[in-house]
């Protein structure tokens, strides 16, 4: 009787240990949808006045994006470090996308790029992407193409600005009115790749001695360029890519 009781108790304990091991082990993880957007902000959608007084309106702003990855990082990634993003969880978009940041008019929403439908739940607090040359389409051969009209003191210039530099951006957490990238089980979250075009042309609404305008090219050099001419642009120093108001480490070549 005693022996049978001992055997029964041993089996119960063994079963409990097995259940614990299974509970600690794998099993299905929670997942949701993570959406990716590109945003040229009101600078692109509504136009603005450059630091040197040119009123710029964009018809199209084609940007080609590739190697888009989102990460759950702990500790949170610091873009100022310039380090490689080491994420505990990574989701990727494996295609190359050419989007028009000026699409949809003045009140348009950020441009939807793509989504990952089975992203592991958690907080995606870092993102990286590359701006690459398009292989086809309206931006073929260029990483960034801007077309539109600029006006200053009665002079009107229809412009097409082509950028061939390819850039990589490693960014921290989105900084804005609300936090982004929090994927709940069965839920949907989004991340945004933000492009600050005032960094290229400057902004007349910002003091001219502000670092933004001191580093910007303005529009004048582009207006003074004859057909086929080029303007030297250092895309690395212009820091075009952001995450909302949050920072990215940028390297262009």
């Amino acid at each position, binding site marked *: 009787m005693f022996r049978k009781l001992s055997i029964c*108790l041993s089996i119960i304990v063994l079963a409990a*240990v097995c259940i614990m091991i299974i509970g600690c082990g794998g099993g299905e993880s929670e997942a949701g949808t993570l959406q990716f957007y590109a945003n040229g902000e009101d600078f692109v959608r509504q136009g603005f006045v450059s630091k040197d007084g040119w009123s710029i309106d964009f018809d199209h702003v084609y940007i080609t994006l590739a190697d888009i990855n989102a990460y759950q990082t702990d500790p949170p990634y610091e873009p100022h470090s310039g380090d490689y993003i080491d994420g505990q969880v990574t989701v990727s978009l494996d295609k190359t996308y050419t989007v028009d940041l000026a699409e949809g008019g003045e009140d348009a929403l950020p441009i939807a790029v793509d989504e990952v439908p089975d992203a592991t739940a958690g907080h995606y607090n870092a993102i990286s992407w590359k701006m690459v040359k398009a292989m086809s389409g309206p931006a073929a051969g260029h990483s960034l193409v801007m077309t539109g009209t600029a006006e200053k003191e009665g002079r009107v210039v229809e412009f097409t600005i082509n950028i061939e530099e390819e850039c990589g951006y490693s960014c921290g957490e989105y900084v804005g009115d609300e936090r982004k990238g929090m994927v709940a089980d069965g839920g949907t979250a989004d991340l945004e790749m933000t492009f600050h075009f005032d960094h290229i042309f400057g902004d007349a609404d910002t003091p001219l001695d502000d670092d933004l305008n001191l580093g910007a090219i303005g529009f004048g050099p582009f207006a003074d360029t004859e057909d086929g001419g080029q303007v030297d642009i250092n895309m690395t120093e212009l820091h075009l890519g952001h995450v909302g*108001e949050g920072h990215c480490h940028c390297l262009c070549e």
Partner: protein
Amino acid sequence: MCIKWKICTVIIFTVVLFLMLPMQAHAHGSKIEYVVDMMIEIVATYDSGEPMSGAQVVVYAPDDISTPWLTGICDDEGRYSFKPDTSMTGTYDVQVRQAGHGDIVHIPVGDGGTMSGSSGGYSTGQIALMSVCVIWGFIGTGLYFLRRKA
């Protein structure tokens, strides 16, 4: 004699088991209590070194990282201070924004307001189950020696 030896073995195992449990020592003497009351101060500046005077501050607490826990404004020197709720340990995320510029910093807060260490360890349930297994191991060993020979 053999039975007595077996009983002694069981007793020894039981005593060893209790000795492995954490004990609290009591002694005469004085007692000093202290409280660490921590304040967190941030200083926000632009890349040029200029302070982000008047910048908007939003603090997210560890228990709800999507809802603002505290909001405020930086002073003329770009400084902002707040007292974390030390009952909520984890990372406090502090976001600062002004004129299209912004950044976010992540501040760890541990028990008693001290910096926390690394995470990890077992849950309460797992500890309880492991304890049961160890205890049963000792009991089972003792019972084995007490078994009646056929």
